[in-house]
């Protein structure tokens, strides 16, 4: 591996050494990981638990107001709606977090 690595657009950037900024970035990353963890837990619950593992048991119930067996509904409709909502909620949370930790990209960049 004699060739020097090339870093795409990130090449030639000054590395961040200022301790305050480093600490701020680390805290930002911890908060991000926490959001991701919560989102992944919901993602797993609606698809793999409600839609697959417990689908047969949930099929004894129906989605209130409709005639969908509940497990079947999660597997073929419900989980997909939740996925869409999850992404938009994450986007909203992260845009807020970016501002809070001053790592956003500005309004018009």
């Amino acid at each position, binding site marked *: 591996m004699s060739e020097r*690595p090339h870093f795409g657009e990130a090449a030639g950037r000054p590395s961040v050494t200022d301790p305050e900024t480093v600490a701020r970035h680390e805290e930002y990353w911890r908060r991000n990981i926490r959001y991701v963890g919560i989102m992944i837990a919901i993602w797993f619950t609606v698809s793999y638990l409600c839609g697959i593992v417990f689908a047969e048991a949930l099929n004894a119930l129906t989605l209130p107001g409709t005639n969908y067996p509940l497990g079947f509904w999660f597997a073929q409709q419900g989980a997909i709606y939740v996925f869409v909502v999850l992404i938009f909620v994450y986007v909203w949370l*992260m845009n807020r977090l970016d501002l809070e930790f001053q790592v956003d990209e500005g309004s018009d960049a």
Partner: protein
Amino acid sequence: MTVQAWTFLLVAASFALYIGIAVWSRASTTQDFYVAGTGVSPLANGMATAADWMSAASFISMAGLISFMGYDGSVYLLGWTGGYVLLALLLAPYLRKYGAFTVPDFVGDRYYSQVARIVAVVCAIFVSFTYVAGQMRGVGIVFGRFLEVDINLGVAIGMAIVFFYAVLGGMKGITYTQVAQYCVLIFAYMVPAIFLSIMITGNPIPQLGLGGVDQATGVALLERLNGLHAELGFAPYTSGSKSTLDVFFITAALMVGTAGLPHVIIRFYTVPRVRDARISVGWALLFISLLYTTAPAVAVFARTNLIASVDEVPYSEVPEWFTNWEATGLVSFEDANGDGLIQYVGPASAETNELTVDRDIMVLANPEIADLPGWVIGLVAAGGLAAALSTAAGLLLVISSAVSHDLLKRSLMPQITEKQELLAARIAAGLAVLVAGYFGMNPPGFVAQVVAFAFGLAASSFFPVIILGIFSKRTTREGAILGMIAGITFTAAYIVYFNFMHPELNSAEHWWIGISPEGIGTVGMLLNFTITVVVSRFTPEPPPQVQVLVDLIRVPRGAGEAHELNI
């Protein structure tokens, strides 16, 4: 106007539109060609991603598959949507921040290794070629069925169109044609679905109609279908027959595979900022879910319609669509007991089944079953073509950039100028179209199967090393290279063993702990994760500049032009 005239008109109009867009959005730099100059709006990128993603299989085959699989069809619905959550949370924003042109670009740089780059190039080309052959075949089939054109001629016409806008416009041309193609395909999918939903349940929204009441009998639609299934000896529609474990693993392989497919990932390189990458995944899934929540409704409508309109019906009185499709050989009836009635029954019935229906016709025949006007049928043809062409173009771009950028510019001939690289990209795209067309005309018998396995291969090669590359600074090149090789080799070997070497053993009792070849990509992915993490522990940590790079991609600020950087 006849159905054929409508079909010709709508297909020709949609093709003219794609060519017009290609001429308008020519690429003049490699940045235009690879990532559309990173100037695509998040909403447009969402639509383009949706079209890129939804292939001939989603448009033509999926509802039919679900129709025959019932609950088991959920693996496709969950598997082909859930991956977008992973993309939004774990991949898209960081890869956009990194600002590469291709997936091997990121892998090669993050793992400071040409070997890693080459392994990634090989994986990308392998996954994309298996996928693209199926798309060209889809184009040929739509032409063959709706325009009565020879399948090979159909493939050639499709090749010419893709050649034109992919070679001329690169990612820029592809992006804006995909936006148009999304509009065509979603309209073509929704119109017959809405008509059917009104006909059967009285509710114009198919997603709600699925949970509604069957107008003819006053019974809940799904209950009625389960009743029909029980009567005819099929497994209950809402329960399915695959093992829970296998459904779990197949779903995971498809989800993770989606998030690891290079042609999907590169779409998120084309937007201006990190926050645009995040939200465009949201738009993409919203646009995709429109079709994916309609498909299970279409599946149930079609299934109920089929059973109601043919079972125990005298052969001499079958509806017209039945006779039309019988002529293509995709519906066939054999009067086993000689009573002149059609017996359509399942494996648990005492009677003999007399009807064979190809699952692909469910979507294509829907407009005829519902007795819809000729223009709707023409629209479905144009929609099927839009779905196949948009996916093919995205895949061809991955192949061409893997050759011109990763193989030539970044590995073999770093001295070439941007102009030469752009020319190489165009030539590579052209050659890739020819190869794809060849496979479309002479499909190896296993293409259809291999397309489904492309997900397992993507899941077991790219996904773990990209995730670990972002979320664990300690991950080393040795770990990543061994992980990728082990993951893809294990997965490919399992698939080849059961599908090509010993197809007679391909059943649940021979599979490893009951996991089918479709679901084995999940095991390959876990293997890749484990090996990458363990080997990384025992090899020297990545050089400091790589660790700095990881720190940089974790924060959004500075993704735009370099001069805007102000940390």
